[in-house]
């Protein structure tokens, strides 16, 4: 019952809850641009946090080569931290550029700036 184990368990369970909430938000929100917000909760909260938690748990566990598991899951967490926002940015750019998403904005600064 070390500190690493407790912290890891907390992070993994918190990540699971974040993931579930992100998924529910992705299902419930009205249009694509609002859903991007839920996707942030689902990826950063639901993947990065539990991956760091897994690396903590692996440090406290007792099976062979546990440092490899810890290091690999930490690297995966960093990769997701980099890649998920960039992918969402690209998708939002494409959706705005092609105009496939139906929405009724009060003000659309991007379109005004392009004119």
């Amino acid at each position, binding site marked *: 019952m070390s500190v690493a184990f407790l912290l890891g368990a907390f992070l993994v369970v918190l990540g699971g809850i974040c993931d579930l909430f992100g998924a529910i938000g992705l299902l419930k929100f009205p249009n694509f641009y609002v859903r991007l917000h839920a996707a942030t909760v689902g990826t950063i909260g639901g993947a990065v946090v539990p991956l760091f938690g897994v690396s903590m748990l692996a440090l406290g566990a007792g099976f062979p080569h546990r440092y490899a598991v810890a290091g690999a899951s930490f690297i995966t967490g960093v990769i997701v931290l980099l890649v998920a926002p*960039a992918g969402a940015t690209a998708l939002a*750019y494409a959706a705005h550029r092609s105009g496939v998403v139906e929405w009724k904005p009060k003000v659309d600064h991007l379109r005004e700036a392009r004119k």
Partner: protein
Amino acid sequence: MKRLAGLIIVLLIVLTVSCYVSRMVPPQKNLHPLGEFYLQNSYFGRYSAKSPEAVTSIVWDYRGVDTLFETAVFFLAIIGSLTLFRLNKGQAEEAKRGEPKLELPGPVATVTKVTVAMILAVSASIALHGQLTPGGGFQGGSALAVAPLLIIAVYTKYALEKNGLDKTRAIIIRSIGLLGIALTALVPLLLGGYIMQNQPIFPAKALGVPLGGSLVFYNFFEYLAVGAGFTAVFLLLSIPEEKFRKFLGVRR
């Protein structure tokens, strides 16, 4: 709605049939004797491949000739694709003419640069650790092929060609890989063994690191061949359609 009805019918059929079948499906708890042989002999034993990874030792040692011919099929498929999009010299020059430009917003480009570096590192570690951990030539090569694809998506293919990785170079790298595989397979014949024989022709250990005999050479060359083959194909596929219409004389 018609699609949904079809889906529900399919699911009901699956459920009923699986309830019916579950009484007679055998619970497979034992290994096949052949699988047990491979597990016991992959590192220890008389017919050893000196690699703890049973899958890689089957792929490149016990059933090596099979994989050699699969590589030949891969070679032929890539060659067939290149032949379908055949260009003469002037057309190839014309296809290369163009300026690299940024196609997606700035942050995406920065992240892509970091990601490409990470992919190169990850794929090399997958391929070159193939004899100890999961991985090997096929996996590393298909991972390597993703890096040029990312660059094509963000900076267009001209950026790749400006930095010296054009179709001809990719084909040369791939030929080097295939030649290396052939040489590694043929060397035991010269030293008095059989074709593709691993032990004891090749060293099992070097500087304390278990190399698994010829497995590490095969993995490295297959890594080059698969990665460069896919890169050549996608460089050809990303030529804009208008240029190709002009080459073929199709007007539409």
